[in-house]
C-alpha cells in the first residue's frame, strides 16, 4: 500500500465500495423479480432463451485481462441499455395487465431506479478518471418490431436473466477497480490508455 493515500484514490475506493453494495442489492432484487416474473408470466424457469437483440451479454472472454477503463465503459454501455429495456418492459407490463399485476410493475420500477442509479455511479467513476463519458447514441438501434405477447414475455425473461448476470459481474469489476496498484496507489488499468 502507498504510504499516503491520495484523495482521489480514497474517493475511488469509496465509490467502488458503494457501487459494490449497490450492485449487490440490485442483484438480489433482480433475482426476486425474476422469480416473480417467471411465475406471473406463466413461464418455465429453466427455459433457454436465445440471445435477444439489444440485450447486452454479460459473458466476456479474458475478463481478468481487462483494463479498468474497459470495465467501466462496458458496464456503462450495458446498464444504459438495460435502463431502456426495463422502461420498455414496464410500459408493456402496464399495457398488458393494467392493475392486475401492480406488484410486478412496482418491482420492475424499483429495479429500473437502481439501474439508473448505477448508471450515474459509473459515470461518476469515469469522471474521476477524467475519462470522457461517451454520449448515448440517440435511441440506440431502431425500435424492434412489435412482438407478440409471448415473445415479449420471453424477451423480458432474457433481459432479467442477463441483468442478474451483469450485477454479479459488476461487483467483480468494481472489486478489481478498487484494488490498489503497487507502484502508484492508483487502481490497476485506469492509468493506462485504452
Amino acid at each position, binding site marked *: 500500500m502507498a504510504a499516503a493515500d491520495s484523495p482521489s484514490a480514497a474517493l475511488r475506493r469509496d465509490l467502488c465500495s458503494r457501487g459494490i453494495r449497490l450492485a449487490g442489492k440490485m*442483484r438480489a432484487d433482480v433475482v426476486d423479480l425474476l422469480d416473480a416474473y417467471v411465475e406471473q408470466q406463466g413461464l418455465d424457469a429453466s427455459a*433457454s432463451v436465445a440471445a435477444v437483440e439489444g440485450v447486452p451479454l*454479460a459473458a*466476456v472472454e479474458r475478463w481478468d485481462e481487462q483494463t479498468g477503463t474497459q470495465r467501466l465503459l462496458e458496464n456503462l454501455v450495458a446498464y444504459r441499455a438495460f435502463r431502456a429495456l426495463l422502461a420498455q418492459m414496464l410500459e408493456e407490463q402496464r399495457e398488458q395487465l393494467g392493475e392486475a399485476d401492480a406488484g410486478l410493475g412496482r418491482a420492475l420500477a424499483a429495479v429500473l431506479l437502481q439501474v439508473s442509479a448505477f448508471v450515474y455511479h459509473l459515470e461518476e467513476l469515469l469522471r474521476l478518471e477524467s475519462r470522457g463519458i461517451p454520449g448515448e447514441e440517440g435511441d440506440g438501434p431502431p425500435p424492434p418490431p412489435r412482438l407478440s405477447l409471448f415473445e415479449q414475455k420471453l424477451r423480458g425473461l432474457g433481459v432479467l436473466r442477463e441483468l442478474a*448476470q451483469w450485477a454479479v*459481474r459488476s461487483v467483480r469489476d468494481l*472489486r*478489481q477497480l478498487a484494488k490498489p496498484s503497487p507502484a502508484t496507489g492508483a487502481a490497476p488499468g485506469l492509468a493506462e490508455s485504452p
Partner: protein
Amino acid sequence: DSHIQYERVGADVTMKCGSMDWDAAVTWTANGTDIDESHLNGSYLILKNVNLSQSGQYSCYEGSSWHLKYQTNLRVGMPPKEPVLMCRSNNYPKGFYCSWHLPTPTYIPNSFNISVIHGTKDMVCEKDAIPKNRCHIRYIQLFSTVKYKVTLTVTNALGKNFTTLTFDEFAIVKPDPPESVVAKPVPNNPRRLEVSWQNPSSWPDPESFPLKFFLRYRPLILDQWQHVELSDGTSHTITDAYAGKEYIIQVAAKDSDIGTWSDWSVAVHATPWTEEPKHLTTEAQITETTSASTSSFMAPPTTKICDKGAMVGSGAMAVCWTAGLVVAAYSVLFI
C-alpha cells in the same frame, strides 16, 4: 492363439476348440485344471449361467498329442449401469472439474468419454492423471448465461451407457472447506474461544473473489449447534461458550456472491479458559506427603478428613467416623 473373451454374468457360453471338429477328442482346462467331461458337448465346452468366479484362462488340448489347440481368457462381467457424474468449480474463476464413477462394478475394463458443450462450442475436458476418473476445463468465458452440457459415456465390451449434466456457470461454484482451523481459549475469559482459519488453498484469488464463512460450534455434551455467518475475515471470537465445557467447532466457506457452501472443515476441539483452583492444589500436596511418611493417626489440621456421607449422629454432636477413630486412638494412647 490366445485372446480375451468377454461374457455377461448369467450368459450361456459355448467355446469351440479352434478349428477342431465337433467330434474330435479334446481336453479342456480352466486355469490349468482339467474340466470334467460333463461340461462338454463333443469338443465344445459349454458353460451355462456363467458367474464371476468362472473368469480365467481356458485351454483346449488335442486328445492324444496334447497339443494346445485353442486358448482364451474368459472375463465374466456386466455392461455398465448409468454412471454417476458430478461437476464442480472449487477454483473459480479459473475453471471447473468433472468426476465420475460407476454405481456398481462391471468387473471388466471400461473406457470413459466425456464431452462438454457450451452453447454451440465444444470444449475439451483435460483428463487428470490422478485421480483417474476426473477431468478439468478452463473457463474461456465468464458471466455467461448459456448453460454447459456435459455428457459422459462409459463403454465396455458388453455394452455402453451415458449420463448428461446441464448447469450454468454460477451453480457449480463450491469452494473447498477452510483450512488450518484453530480454536484457542482466551486467557482470563471463561466464556470465550478464539477461532481462526485460512481460505482454502485451491481458491485462486480470494481478494477479487472473497469468500464468506459459516461457523458452527457446540459443546460436546449437547446436540444443538450454534451458527454464525461471517461476511468477511478469517477469525471469530465465540463469546457465549459454557465455562469449562469442551467444544467442537467447524467452518464452511462460500463465494460471497454465487454458488453453494463448501463441506464443513475438519472439526477442532477447544475448551474455554478456566481458573486453576489454588487451595485444592496446596492441600492435595500436603496430604500426599503426610500419608506417605507418618504412621500416627494425627491428621493435618487443614485437611478435610471426612465427607458428608461418613457423618455419625446429628446436630452439634455430629462426628464423622474417621474423626471418631482418631479420638479413640488417642484415648488408647493416654490410658
